[in-house]
């Protein structure tokens, strides 16, 4: 009984001592905080591994208009329209919209793409004043982009393995105009230039 009493006192004091020593030791260790967004060496998308599943981006130049991604998406995030020229019997891509606000970045669409036209960028901070601005429009209204044909001899371009991949920026720097009825936010989301300059 009395032994237990003094044992409790001893346990309490030694364990508190050990705990204090641990917290004290962290006073002189390096914190692991990354001071996103302004106090980092380079923009965070460039620090992420190439496997990172960020916002979807599309290279319409190599899109075969197979619509596999549209069918695969569990959330109907992707909307593709195509047009067949009756004379030349060629396929044209007339619309390729991705609702980034609805996308859950599961990555299923990129896996079915035969050419790697749709893929994840390492961008993730799609901050905007209006959620409509997050509808990414990869084909300008009225444009017709000929569908890419996979040739037997040539390998499809595919995703360059293990290489940071941020072609999306270009899309955002020169955003496609929205339809008049869709324009609700004043400015479509633009990447802040100050962030790239760094501080």
């Amino acid at each position, binding site marked *: 009984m009395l032994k237990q009493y003094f044992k409790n006192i001893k346990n309490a004091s030694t364990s508190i001592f050990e705990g204090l020593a641990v*917290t004290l030791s962290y006073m002189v260790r390096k914190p692991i905080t990354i001071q996103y967004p302004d106090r980092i060496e380079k923009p965070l998308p460039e620090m992420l591994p190439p496997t990172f599943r960020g916002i979807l981006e599309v290279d319409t130049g190599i899109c075969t208009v197979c619509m596999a991604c549209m069918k695969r998406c569990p959330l109907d995030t992707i909307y593709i329209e195509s047009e067949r020229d009756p004379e030349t019997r060629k396929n044209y891509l007339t619309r390729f919209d991705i609702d980034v606000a609805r996308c859950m*970045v599961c990555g*299923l669409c990129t896996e079915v793409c035969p050419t790697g036209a749709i893929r994840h960028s390492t961008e993730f901070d799609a901050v905007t004043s209006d959620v409509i601005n997050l509808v990414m429009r990869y084909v300008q209204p009225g444009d017709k982009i000929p569908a890419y044909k996979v040739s037997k001899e040539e390998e499809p371009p595919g995703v360059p393995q293990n290489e940071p991949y941020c072609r999306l920026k270009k899309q955002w720097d020169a955003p496609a105009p929205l339809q008049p009825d869709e324009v609700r936010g004043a400015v479509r989301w633009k990447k802040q230039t100050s962030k790239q300059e760094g501080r």
Partner: protein
Amino acid sequence: MSRMAVETLDNESTIVNMGPQHPSTHGVINLRLQLKGEVIEAVDPNVGFLHRSIEKIAELTQYTGFIPYTDRIDYLGAMFGNMGYCMAVEKLLGVEVPRRAQYMRVIACELNRIINHLIACGTMSMDLGAFTPFLHGIREREKVNDMMEKICGARLNYNYMRFGGVSLDYMPGLDKEILAFLDRFERFLPEFNRLITGNEIFVQRLLHVGVIPKETAIHYGLGGPNLRASGVDFDVRRDYPYSVYPEFSFDVVTGGHYPGECGDSYARYMVRIDEMRQSARLVRQAVEGLPEGEYLAKVARNPVPPKGEVYSKVESVRGEMGFYLVSDGTDKPYRLKVRTSSFCAMSVMPEIGPGLMVADMTAFFGSLDVVAPEVDR
């Protein structure tokens, strides 16, 4: 039973709502407590605040399209949702998973178990008033999260597994990175123990609190660390072996040899701490023995399994996670039932809760490691 008790209360008791906006309920869970002074007379766990009808979604989605949803069942142990569901569909389809993919799955799952238990132990210490251990846990978890980005591309909702394998092969050098993390982690755990586990206040807060006897644990269908802490030597990985777990050596941690009682909150906490060690051991074995080969078997893009039903279970971080899948021969499941252990853990509260104090309740609740979305699905 508990609801009745709450409604026929006498004048001496107070009813308080613990949650859904309460700091210690870890998500949107409501516990109605009937208090006499600070002692709890009855507990009424009120679930359903986070119900997203995931089982119904499964009936409307193609088989492959449902994989990302399994992340959302238990967001802290997303790998296990992936694994259980993929195993169920693979069983239906009769797909053989390549050995390399199996190893990669095991590595991912066990890393996931480590980081989940880090969070569980951290939040538990936070419930008891110590904030620092929680952030130390989070810090180590962050390292795994960074690796998870390389393994599968996401930090929380992994969506890593596919029917017949995994979605991505390893980046070069990733296995070395995992081993380096394990080296650090094995040194980190003793420090974590010095900081909080051995702390006398912490120990005294947990000893003999919320004791779940062996029989009760079995009757309520508890799983995982909660079940093993009560002295039931059961682990799906060992007793119903799946994947390549039989090829590795690991111990099933059970309560009973810790200070205090078998099945008290401290035992549950310590089982988690020791399971992290076992998981690190498993990951090390798997990384060192990682075979070469395919990481994804050839499976149809939109698989249509034959008619039939199948049940597959995995040892999730919170215990047995089962997927009961009925196929009617179309490309969408006819019915999917997910069996989760958090729900069982919530159901044991009215039985164990009375007699605890309010402060014990947070300790007990923390030690059960309930995750709200897994309760409601």
